[in-house]
């Protein structure tokens, strides 16, 4: 071993989306932070499709942004197509999605990492964790350099014992073109952490010069062009590009069926579980055999490269089958494949072994974030990285850990789902996972989180000031709308019908009129004496949405208030559940396995009944006297 070179507050292992946000968050909070990566060139690499956001995922990106994270603003600088999905539906399910230029994304992320105060980057793969008892105190790199650290965040992505499959051939890799982390994976297995295998995959990439776009449907970005970050401006965006849509057909499916005998998925070579919502094309045509066509989006990989990402035909079939199936598709008859598609299997650790700070229950000071926890997606990874970074920093500062509640953020839903239910397939965010969906919107991510982030020290002064101004304008305008009345003597019948759809028979406060489904803020401001409204469109939007959803939000608030007691009642980690007499054997075993941190977490473990929760409340009230394990 080489002698100790340096000592850090926080060491982040991995420079993907989780690692980048983790390192930046810890550094923003003033911690001396080291980011270790096996390759500086691949910091911020998008290994799969070149896009950020989408329904549920866009929500996470906005939350990361509201807490000072980088993902949204890097996307603003690297995005080559921006759209608002579900624009025709209500604000709670609207979400931003951007195609990103891979090269620009890496460049801007690397710039942020390299230029951040308190943050250093070092290129070395990590082979081992250094432990003292059940505490992590540092890491050992591939060539034997030891770094000491008070906390370590592991964001290993698909690199832990990664194995790439193309047809029946397979080899060890972290992703195509990168080496896997074998020694570290081996070492983590030795530490008896509960390990499992998952699988994900990518499609073959295609040279844009060989694609006939003229037979495909063009999908352009939105106009006006959206921005991702609350501080973002559309002037930051580079040139914009369209996506293209084509379809598979029966001929394509026949080719795939003929190759199934050489599919690692269908011959049992791959053991890891893949996601149901992102199946390979061979999986799709098998499970939905009656569907005679599948949609394919051709997404540009960047402004300076020719490659296209055919979203929808992820596959691990042998290369000759890939070649034939791609060329069977309309517009791809002459396609040149630049990289074969592949599936990758990798180790993950059962997230039920984590606290809601993302610290492992087994090893103090060790945090996990990203795919290592069984999730998939850049956005899910970034959100966890940010939270792990915050909590590692809080631990260094000897402050209490923090995690938003399910009622406060998708980040809270994500972490709570992971630690109370575990995963059975790579976990991806959907809005249907959030019971408080109407309150957890993209548009109010800053209102939900920025103040808390500022208190935690992870949100800087510039963002805080911008936010504070916005929040004050919202409150001021809401007050004004409540106290300004519209009088039927002043508003003509014509004007009322134009704006409200009907005449008014008595005086109304503006706020009440705005609650009506068909009345927009903009139109309302045109009524005599109603305007002028606020000029900041974000403020106007917020005022309008809050008025429209008011009834539902207050109902959800009551639901939330009821759950807060449970969410805040803490359960000791050294509780001996076998000594709690009112509990069934099954409940005792489940609780002993999960060691929930709060009563709320306990309630969400499958098979735990309300009666069990009542019994726990009784013991909690008594301080669990006599039921604690002595260390």
């Amino acid at each position: 071993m080489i002698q100790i070179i340096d000592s850090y507050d926080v060491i982040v292992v991995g420079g993907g989306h989780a690692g980048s946000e983790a390192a930046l968050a810890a550094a923003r909070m003033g911690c001396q932070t080291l980011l270790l990566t096996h390759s500086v060139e691949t910091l911020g690499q998008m290994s799969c499709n070149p896009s950020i956001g989408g329904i549920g995922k866009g929500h996470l990106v906005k939350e990361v942004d509201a807490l000072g994270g980088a993902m949204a603003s890097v996307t603003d600088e690297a995005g080559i197509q921006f759209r608002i999905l579900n624009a025709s539906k209500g604000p709670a399910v609207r979400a931003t999605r951007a195609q990103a230029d891979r090269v620009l994304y890496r460049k801007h992320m690397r710039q942020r990492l390299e230029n951040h105060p308190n943050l250093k980057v070092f290129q070395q793969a990590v082979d081992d964790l250094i432990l003292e008892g059940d505490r992590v105190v540092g890491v050992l790199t591939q060539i034997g350099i030891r770094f000491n650290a008070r906390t370590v965040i592991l964001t290993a992505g698909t690199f832990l014992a990664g194995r790439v499959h193309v047809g029946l051939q397979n080899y060890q890799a972290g992703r195509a073109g990168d080496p896997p982390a074998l020694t570290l994976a081996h070492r983590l297995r030795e530490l008896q952490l509960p390990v499992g295998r998952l699988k994900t995959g990518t499609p073959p990439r295609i040279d844009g010069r060989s694609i006939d776009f003229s037979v495909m449907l063009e999908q352009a970005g939105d106009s006006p062009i959206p921005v991702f970050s609350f501080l973002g401006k559309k002037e930051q965006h580079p040139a914009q590009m369209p996506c293209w849509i084509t379809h598979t057909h029966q001929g394509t499916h026949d080719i795939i069926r003929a190759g199934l005998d050489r599919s690692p998925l269908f011959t049992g070579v791959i053991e890891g579980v893949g996601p149901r919502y992102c199946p390979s094309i061979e999986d799709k045509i098998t499970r939905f055999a009656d569907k005679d066509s599948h949609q394919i989006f051709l997404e540009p990989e960047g402004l300076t490269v020719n490659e296209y990402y055919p979203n929808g035909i992820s596959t691990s079939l042998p290369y000759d089958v890939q070649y034939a199936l791609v060329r069977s598709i309309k517009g791809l008859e002459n396609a040149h494949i630049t990289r074969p598609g592949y599936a990758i299997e990798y180790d993950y650790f059962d997230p039920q072994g984590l606290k809601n700070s993302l610290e492992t229950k087994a090893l103090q000071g060790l945090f996990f974030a990203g795919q290592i926890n069984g999730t998939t997606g850049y956005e899910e990874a970034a959100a966890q990285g940010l939270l792990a970074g915050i909590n590692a920093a809080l631990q260094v500062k000897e402050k209490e850990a923090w995690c938003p509640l399910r009622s406060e953020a998708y980040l809270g839903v994500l972490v709570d789902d992971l630690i109370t239910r575990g995963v059975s397939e790579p976990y991806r965010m959907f809005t249907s996972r959030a019971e408080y969906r109407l309150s957890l919107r993209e548009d109010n991510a800053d209102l939900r989180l920025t103040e808390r982030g500022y208190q935690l020290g992870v949100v800087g002064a510039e963002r805080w000031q911008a936010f504070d101004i916005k929040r004050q304008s919202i409150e001021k305008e809401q007050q004004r709308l409540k106290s300004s009345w519209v009088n039927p003597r002043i508003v003509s019948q014509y004007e009322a019908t134009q704006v409200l759809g009907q005449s008014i028979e008595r005086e109304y406060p503006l706020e009440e009129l705005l609650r009506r489904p068909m009345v927009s803020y903009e139109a309302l401001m045109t009524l005599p004496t109603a305007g002028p409204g606020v000029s900041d469109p974000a403020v106007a939007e917020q005022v309008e949405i809050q008025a429209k959803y008011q009834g539902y939000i207050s109902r959800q608030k009551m639901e939330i208030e009821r759950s807060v007691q449970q969410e805040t009642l803490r359960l000791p980690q050294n509780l001996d559940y076998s000594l709690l007499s009112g509990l069934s054997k099954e409940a005792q075993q489940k609780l002993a396995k999960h060691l929930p941190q709060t009563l709320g977490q306990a309630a969400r473990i499958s098979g735990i009944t309300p009666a069990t929760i009542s019994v726990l409340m009784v013991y909690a009230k008594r301080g669990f006297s006599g039921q604690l394990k002595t260390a």
Partner: protein
Amino acid sequence: MSSTDIIAAIATAPGLGGIGVIRVSGRLITPIILSLCARALKPRVATLCHFQDHADTLIDQGIAIYFPAPHSYTGEEVLECQCHGGPVVLQQLLRRILMLGARSAEPGEFSLRAFLNNKMDLIQAEGVADLIAASSEEAARCANRSIQGEFSKVVHQIAQELVTLRALTEAMLDFPEEDIEPQTLENQKKQLFFIDSHLKQLIVGSGQGRLLREGAVIVLAGKPNAGKSSLLNRLAEEDIAIVTEIPGTTRDLIRQNINCEGVSLQFVDTAGLRDATDIVEAIGIERTWSALQTADLCVFIVDATLGLTPEDDAISAQFPNSLPVITVFNKMDCLLTQPQLQSHPSQVWISAKTGEGLPELKKTILSALGWQGVADGVFMARARHLEAMQVAQQHLMKASETQLQQEIFAEELRQAHENLMTITGQITPDDLLGEIFSRFCIGK
């Protein structure tokens, strides 16, 4: 620790008792008191109240006591209502309180709250955990018994229909980019309509189950000397009420439980209705009218030898509008000529003296109460299940009103489903996603 959640339950043992007690506990229960008792209550003072339903008609007269926090059994604000102990009245009162915003208490929940608010010492508290465990087991056993078989099957079926509709709705919200065949609003509306009508059927069927368990109150009313007390005695097959030739013999309400085809019917004999000069009789007549306010059914007794007189018409005109009435022509044995028996659904000819016509009367009463005999579609749902189904149904109704806004539509479906899940058990969001992924090929 004080919960915003208001809980309520019948505190006395089930069955017929002299007095029944309903206990309500929580924070801010004053609005419930004001609506239920129609007056404010002085702390810790037993007050005679008229417990009222939503239309301000009387459910029962009884004693209410308000205990402000923290000086109460649970340490929260508590209201205790003591009323006449029949299961029917108690259920009516409880249902009214639930409508006012309380929810049914979980097993052992009052004791739990008392304990959490330092109202029990450690030694008393030793038993609380065991009590909760035991009573929840008992409740689970009961629930199991009641939701076995057909009821459980139907609830699950409706829940499954709801899952399907939710999956369609959620898929459109979460996967707008997939080439999912777009669900037309008409399609959603149609499915919602089916679920709603299935749930309504179930609620009606469960109401029958409730009838089987909780019974019904039937008031015998009519002019003096029409033969009400004779009929009660004949129905009970014993001499319960004093019968004389003197009009106005019955002064107070006399209640008697009679089992008809397994349904427990409480018959209430009352003072004959007329302009009374006697003070005692006048009070008795007042009680007759208030008994009619809360009855499930009125048996209106007419002297067949006199036929329907103007006095009879004046009486029946004053019956509460929503109260079903069966007109019984008594004393058919005294008729010189046999009456021409028309098959009018709400008219029966009997003789309380000979017992003639009684089987027909019982049959008519049961069918007027909605009893169709124990057959398919009668579900032994508990009040808690009925409550959950009714709330679910309200959300389905709201969903049908807000269909243009898909995310609000989805929210109402979620609320409806969550209520049904208190009967069927939880499904996780992952199960819902599973439904989506098995139906649609998601894979962008």
